[in-house]
């Protein structure tokens, strides 16, 4: 699959994870992929079940929330100009400096299983993570993930 240009924010400038989630979540809402309340839901879920992953050389976050907030499954992407702190998945006291965000809008567990698995495969490759953090436009992003996502 390809990440849509409207759902991609390159070199996002944000000071907090809340700002990141708000900006990217609203893109999904404006494009009709998610329902009203998606952003609030994703913020709340990030508090209870954080999604920061301590990948190398920079951290990745995969914010998402319950499927009933989603109209159509898709994925939104941002790389950040400066990292913001996300709590590490599975903890409530370890922080990760995140520069890459893949926001998942998933309706059900059958959706996008391949996409999710491939995405996770990318995260395990430091060279790929580093390249994703540096992409300058959506075409560059899709060239990197083309055969993999």
């Amino acid at each position, binding site marked *: 699959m390809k990440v849509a240009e409207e759902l991609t924010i390159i070199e996002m400038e944000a000071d907090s994870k809340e700002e990141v989630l708000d900006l990217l979540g609203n893109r999904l809402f404006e494009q009709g992929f998610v329902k009203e309340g998606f952003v609030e839901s994703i913020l709340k*879920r990030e508090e*209870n*079940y954080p*999604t920061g*992953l*301590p*990948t190398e050389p920079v951290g990745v976050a*995969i914010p*998402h*929330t*319950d*499927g009933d907030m989603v109209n159509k499954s898709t994925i939104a992407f941002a790389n950040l100009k400066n990292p913001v702190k996300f709590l*590490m*998945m*599975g*903890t*409530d006291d370890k922080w990760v400096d995140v520069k890459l965000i893949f926001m*998942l809008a*998933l309706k*059900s*567990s059958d*959706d996008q*299983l391949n996409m*999710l*698995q491939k995405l*996770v495969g990318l*995260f*395990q490759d430091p060279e790929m993570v580093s390249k994703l953090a540096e992409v300058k436009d959506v075409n560059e992003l899709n060239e990197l993930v083309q055969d993999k996502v």
Partner: protein
Amino acid sequence: MKKLLIMCGTGIATSTVVKGKVEQWLKDNNLSQEVKIYQSKVSDEIGRIDEYDVVLSTTLVPNNIKDKVIDGVPLLTGIGIDSMYDKVLAEIKRE
């Protein structure tokens, strides 16, 4: 047949990835016939965690069930996978 539970916050995203990887691992180690996989969200399982032989989670769990739960995040980051599978295998082999 051992019961292996994989859980995350929503029961649809990260637990799906972990499930796919664990299924492959079971196959590669000829354990598929010995283990049945269940997938769920944490909030649905807290009260019945003892029904399972092995529990993998990508999210934080309450302190009272912490000892029972193995951290599944290594399957998402690629860091610490071997020691995670060592723990899973020990639970599967436990009499």
